């Protein structure tokens, strides 16, 4: 899977230019996080990846094919998009019917539908709620139903918009597990998130958007080692990284264990010198 974004511009009918010429290549299966303040253009950007929005300038090539050549419904075979609010997506009377809806729209063979639904339900821990009315699910569980309904369509790319919003510890872990598993199956996950703890834990590549332009784009260690540039986009590094950086440790650190390990290593060096 290769997504080439070529000088992407988007100007809304109101005259606001939300994207001012974005170019990058997203390739392979390493999950990508897109971060930035509200209004930085994150949602506008990802809405181009399955043709919900059409570029007003530049282009996007998905495996060489221009995004403009097909409708969103046609792209949905390859690019899945989980909306921020599951209430915009769900309308059927059981979770199972919701999971079947997408695969049937794209004419997936019946046996494949069953296999994909079983996989999606288990991955999202919905196997015991298949007969439940989505309306009776808790808001956070509804989100997993929406995620499973896209995974069941077996696309190569899955876009998530703020998946951790409102999730507790268990929910965030379940999401992390979903993203891991999808990567192992060769899927590319692209996620918009404000949750920096989740971002540095789950994603190897980070794209930082700011006022419709790419501010930083690269490996998470590289991106987070530039706190001064990050500040411009109003992105605050996660708590552990903030502590390590302010304590004078140069390289970005993301976990408590890594921080304590680094502190002990540095201390030993100081003691021996």
């Amino acid at each position: 899977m290769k997504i080439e974004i070529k000088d992407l511009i988007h100007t809304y009918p109101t005259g606001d230019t939300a994207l001012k010429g974005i170019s990058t290549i997203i390739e392979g299966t390493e999950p990508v996080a897109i971060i930035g303040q509200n209004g930085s253009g994150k949602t506008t950007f990802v809405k181009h990846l399955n043709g919900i929005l059409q570029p007003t300038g530049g282009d996007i090539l998905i495996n060489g094919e221009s995004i403009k050549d097909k409708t969103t419904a046609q792209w949905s075979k390859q690019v899945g998009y989980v909306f921020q609010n599951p209430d915009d997506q769900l309308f059927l009377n059981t979770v199972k019917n919701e999971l079947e809806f997408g695969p049937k729209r794209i004419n997936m063979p019946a046996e494949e539908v069953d296999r994909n639904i079983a996989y999606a339900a288990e991955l999202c821990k919905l196997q015991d709620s298949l007969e439940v009315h989505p309306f009776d699910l808790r808001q956070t569980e509804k989100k997993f139903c929406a995620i499973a309904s896209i995974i069941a369509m077996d696309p190569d790319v899955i876009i998530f918009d703020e998946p951790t919003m409102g999730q507790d510890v268990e929910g965030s872990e379940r999401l992390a597990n979903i993203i891991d598993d999808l990567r192992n199956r060769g899927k590319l996950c692209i996620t918009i998130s404000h949750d920096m703890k989740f971002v540095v834990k789950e994603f190897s590549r980070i794209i930082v958007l700011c006022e419709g332009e790419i501010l930083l784009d690269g490996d998470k260690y590289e991106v987070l080692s530039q706190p001064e540039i990050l500040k411009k986009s109003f992105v605050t590094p996660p708590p552990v990284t903030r502590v390590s950086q302010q304590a004078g440790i140069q390289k970005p650190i993301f976990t408590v264990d890594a921080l304590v390990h680094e502190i002990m290593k540095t201390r030993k060096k100081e003691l021996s010198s």
Partner: protein
Amino acid sequence: MDSILKVEGLSFKYSNSKEYAIRDISFEAKQGEILCVVGANGSGKSTICNALVGLIPHYIDGEREGTVKIFNENTAGLKMGELVTKIGLVFQNPFNQLSYTTSTVEQELAYGLGNIGVPRDEMVLRIQKIAKRMRIDKFLHKNPLELSGGQVQRVALGSSIVMDPDIIVLDECTSQLDPMGSEEIFDIIKDLNQDGKTIILVDHDMEKVARIADRVMVLHEGELAAIDTTKNIFGNLAMENYAIAVPDFTQIGLSLQDNHLYNGEPIMNEQEAIAAAKKVLYS
């Protein structure tokens, strides 16, 4: 400090459910404190909030037992309209907290005051004061539907504060906001607390909870698991049993402690964590 809110044996079962959402909850809130309520999704946090402000039983049907007292007055005998000047509620979705019958932020702030018959002169005074407090004085004449989520949430908080309640209940009021929007709300909450308001706050962000809370109440499957000072809860309680995260700052302290590099009080915020790390590194 005096107790302002006293909850005794509170249980509630929603009319469409077989099981109790909360069981036998008893606690007190002290006047002027920030009490945070934490717990996994479904542990009963929102049910407690709704019961405190009277939506249970006045608006939401089910079986309710126990008492909620504010300043020693049992709220069961009060109507919603009487409760709104004692205890306010702000919840998650900013846009569902607009009245949809106004066209400016100013009118929106006045909406509740009109309902309880506050004279217009007083309305004007109160709105001026609250608008500054909520940092929304710049868009008093704008249509609330044109504002960002964070701004609307400040309008919602303002609409609640303008009724001048003694207690404000905030039910995950920052979970749909971006980091900047959420940070602003937390700053305002601290200001309000300094003005003497008692705050009851439900939130998933444990770093924020540790930073802001005087005490923490832990809910688990509808029951009260623990209520204690923030330091005691995060420093000593086996949080994994309740599916709640320990704040990263606290974890740094605990981990340093395990390696015999720290033996002070449980760490509650960024500054303390940095100080502890620096102490090990440079002394």
